[in-house]
């Protein structure tokens, strides 16, 4: 771990220098929004954005990703045998990722990279990626990251954490991957560790003070799963839900996907797409039976997974990093902070 300082005048030059070794991703202004995109050509990341409408999960887990290919041409060797698609896993860096989004990737990792199973596509992309985080100095009103083991200066899952000092960035280099990226940019002005850490601590405390939302999760673990599942509040809670996929798609920790095969002429490919537990099709069996056939079951599933099943299975906190995107984007304002409160304080009536 060490600190370096980056004069903003040298920022663009350094970033451009790294393009030789890294594919870059970062926040880009798009109309009124900010989107995390590949920084093709000489596009620069917008390091001053407030928040991106979609999270950075797509850098490792694109909404639509080809995983296998085959030829249907019978004169070709190995026709009809699916083989891994030749995707690009050369080094990439995601610039300006928010600390809560980087933490979210660590939660997603628990699912895609386990002792028993490794998702090769996600794991290879993860290996290839350097996460250059941007600390949040002005948290938005929907940010409740400090309630869920993240926060505006959370370092979990990051290789570098940047703090904005108007004319310069201070970069805390957290891992060897971070060190390699800084070297590729030519950023090498080291500064005193103790002083820098003290400054980071002041900035972090200042930022954390501006987070006014607090969500309690302390009692979720001790709640009986079936009691929560059978609770009567789900009907009221689900009433307004229109069952779109917005909450799941904007969520940095939602990882569910669907597999599809498509053929065009003699070429066939298998790819995966983000899927959403809000859709009836998500659980519809080939027989036509659907274990989550009605809306309330699907709404319950989303919150039970995030706030109870995940917690019970991994004991690593809830599957939410407090970014507030779903709160802001939900067309009918279903608020996970309120749902979490309802679940956390639920007492079964006999």
């Amino acid at each position, binding site marked *: 771990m060490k600190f370096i300082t980056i004069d903003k005048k040298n920022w663009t030059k350094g970033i451009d220098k790294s393009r030789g070794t890294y594919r870059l991703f970062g926040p880009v202004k*798009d*109309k*009124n*929004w900010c*989107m995390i995109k590949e920084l093709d050509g000489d596009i620069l990341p917008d390091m001053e954005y*407030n928040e991106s*409408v*979609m999270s950075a999960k797509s850098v490792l887990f694109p*909404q*639509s990703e080809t995983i296998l290919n085959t030829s249907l041409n019978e004169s070709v060797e190995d026709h009809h045998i699916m083989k891994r698609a030749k995707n690009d896993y050369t080094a990439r860096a995601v610039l300006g990722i928010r600390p809560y989004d980087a933490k979210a990737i660590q939660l997603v990792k628990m699912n895609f990279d386990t002792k028993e199973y490794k998702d090769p596509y996600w794991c290879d992309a993860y290996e290839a990626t350097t996460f250059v985080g941007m600390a949040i100095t*002005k948290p*938005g*009103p*929907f940010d409740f990251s400090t309630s869920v083991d993240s926060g505006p200066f959370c370092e979990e899952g990051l290789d570098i954490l940047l703090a904005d000092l108007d004319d310069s960035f201070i970069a805390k280099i957290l891992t060897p991957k971070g060190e390699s990226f800084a070297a590729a940019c030519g950023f090498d002005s080291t500064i005193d560790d103790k002083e820098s850490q003290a400054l980071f601590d002041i900035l972090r405390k200042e930022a954390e003070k501006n987070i006014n939302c607090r969500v309690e999760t302390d009692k979720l673990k001790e709640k009986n799963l079936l009691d929560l599942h059978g609770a009567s509040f789900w009907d009221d809670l689900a*009433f*307004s839900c*229109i*069952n*779109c*996929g*917005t909450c*799941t*798609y*904007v969520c940095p920790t939602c990882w569910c996907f*669907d597999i*599809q095969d*498509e053929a065009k002429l003699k070429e066939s490919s298998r*790819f995966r*797409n983000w899927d*959403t537990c809000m*859709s*009836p*099709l998500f659980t*519809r069996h080939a027989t036509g039976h659907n274990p989550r056939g009605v809306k309330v079951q699907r709404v319950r599933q989303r919150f039970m997974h995030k706030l109870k099943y995940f917690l019970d299975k991994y004991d690593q906190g809830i599957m939410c990093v407090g970014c507030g995107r779903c*709160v*802001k*984007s939900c*067309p*009918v*304002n*279903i*608020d996970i*902070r*309120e749902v979490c409160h309802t679940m956390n304080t639920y007492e079964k009536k006999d």
Partner: protein
Amino acid sequence: MDTCIKKIRELSAELLEKGEVQKVIGFAQGTIPMATSPIAIESKQDTEKLVFNSTCGLNLANYASKQKGKVAIIAKGCDSRNIVTHIVENQIQRDQIYIIGVPCTGMVDKSKIATLFEDEITGFTEDGNTLRVTSSSREEILKKQDYLRENCLYCTHKNPILYDVLATELVEEQMLEKPFPDVDRIEALDTDAKWQHFENLTKNCIRCYACRNACPLCYCPTCFVDEAGPQWVGKGQNKTDVNTFHYLRAFHCAGRCTDCGACVEACPMGINVRDFTRKLNKDALELFGWEAGLDITKRPPLDAYSPEDPDDFIK
């Protein structure tokens, strides 16, 4: 318009108390600024939860049609037109629904207001035509008229078409010389530019289907994009598949769309979904003299034969 809430609550309490309806469907205050949430009220005490203001931009028609028993519904002009459409399309019977009509002075364009600020909006209040919007850095006093949603700007049916009671006095309807200036602009483009316009429109679409699910016309038990056996449309982010969804959905709304704007309101990606449906609304008006949801006794133009049909082939 915000003063009518007292009347809405009184009427709702009375209906529930007398047992005339099982539920009142309206809007509740949201947890964040400029947000409201559809709610079903079942007891007199809970009527205090009802609100009505310029942020009630969703359409409640679909919520009412899915209920058992008789329900009351708070209906703006557009909601009432979609209730008419639901009655015509046999989704709900007239005697199953009690309509509390609210003459509407328009809903605000939340994203237009959001673009005035560099940071997040932390407060929103309204008083007549004055909006007071605050963020952590500053406050803006706005005229509501300048921040109406586009569909509200072109609305010629602010008053409910069908109602059992009104929550406030009727408002004056506007007459528009050019009711479709937005469509005219797109029509004036050459073919390539027109194509490009629609390509750009959907480029950020994430296929969450919020537009469809917020739409009062989209009540099919299984939407064509969710059909799995056989599957009709590709599920990925392929442009053709994304656009197929939008084009087919729009055509399915032809002669039925009331331009309520719920699709745009719901879209998390800021897509002006109405660009697809507005042209069809214009065609319905120009070819058939038809506006959806104005008469419970008339079948929609694509559902009826008429000797006056402008297309020769049908005669």
